């Protein structure tokens, strides 16, 4: 499977999708109004990955900002991993950013996945 990387922009996140490492990472900010167009290729990659996932999958969410349109996308994305084995969501936030930490906890309530929390170093 192709590794996929995208550089972050003012309103779209940096993306790293690495099937060999079982790693999915979003970083920076995700603010597009039209989330469908941006996230479509990412969802295609994920669907393909989930047909033959690695033994362990790590999903790192390293966002400083995301809009509510993206929160729907994130929920949808995380839900897709619920049936895969050994998936861990690594949720990053700035130390003082309690809102981002709380967002992570809310996603943890909404999906059946293991979450761990990290502060940006």
């Amino acid at each position, binding site marked *: 499977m192709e590794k996929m990387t995208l550089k972050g922009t*003012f309103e779209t996140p940096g993306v790293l999708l690495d099937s060999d490492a079982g790693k999915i990472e979003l970083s920076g900010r995700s603010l597009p*109004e039209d989330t469908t167009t941006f996230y479509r290729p990412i969802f295609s990659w994920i669907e393909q990955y989930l047909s033959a996932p690695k033994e362990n999958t790590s999903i790192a969410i390293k966002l400083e*900002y995301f*809009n*509510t*349109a993206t929160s729907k996308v994130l929920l949808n994305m995380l839900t897709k991993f619920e049936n895969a084995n050994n998936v861990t969501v690594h949720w990053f936030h700035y130390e003082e950013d*309690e*809102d981002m930490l709380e967002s992570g906890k*809310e996603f943890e309530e909404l999906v059946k996945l293991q979450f761990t929390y990290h502060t940006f170093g």
Partner: protein
Amino acid sequence: MPIDKFKDLNTVYELHKSMEDNQIIIAYEGEFNSSITQSVLSLAEKNLDQKLEKGQTKRRAFNIAVECLQNISSHSDRNAEYPNSIFIIGQEGNEFYISSGNTIKANKVENLQRKLEQINILDSDGLKQLHMQAIKESLKRQDSNNAGLGLISIARKSGKKLDYQFIPVDTDNSFFSFQATFIKLDENQ
């Protein structure tokens, strides 16, 4: 036409003075589309960076600005008759306000008003529950209508009641004025 010109130039000064007196950080009036939204947002972020230390208040302000602008932009796509909207960020001492105004179809008023009233009676726990419920429903429906979630998010970031007003402009349309305020947090705490 010297008189008109004189009048216009006076208007420039009056507008400038009024914006200065009201401590306007950014104001944009005109058509909104996704590329304009992005430009306004980028400018808003630069101006907020000058006013606020990097930290929670700035992040909340930016988040509110994003949702406000995207609310306008999603509405104005559907209003060819009144394409112009307004977006303002201002400051009054430690209080910041983010305001928007756009024309919406009169038949949308009741539903929007109901959503806003529902949000305004809730405390922070209530808003969290409403958010969780709304996001779960949005996943089921897979629709693109985001206004509900956006408004809940603004209310949560603001921590204050949302201000709004509907002014009928003709039988089919109403002007929707909206304002979210927030207090600059003491980042040293």
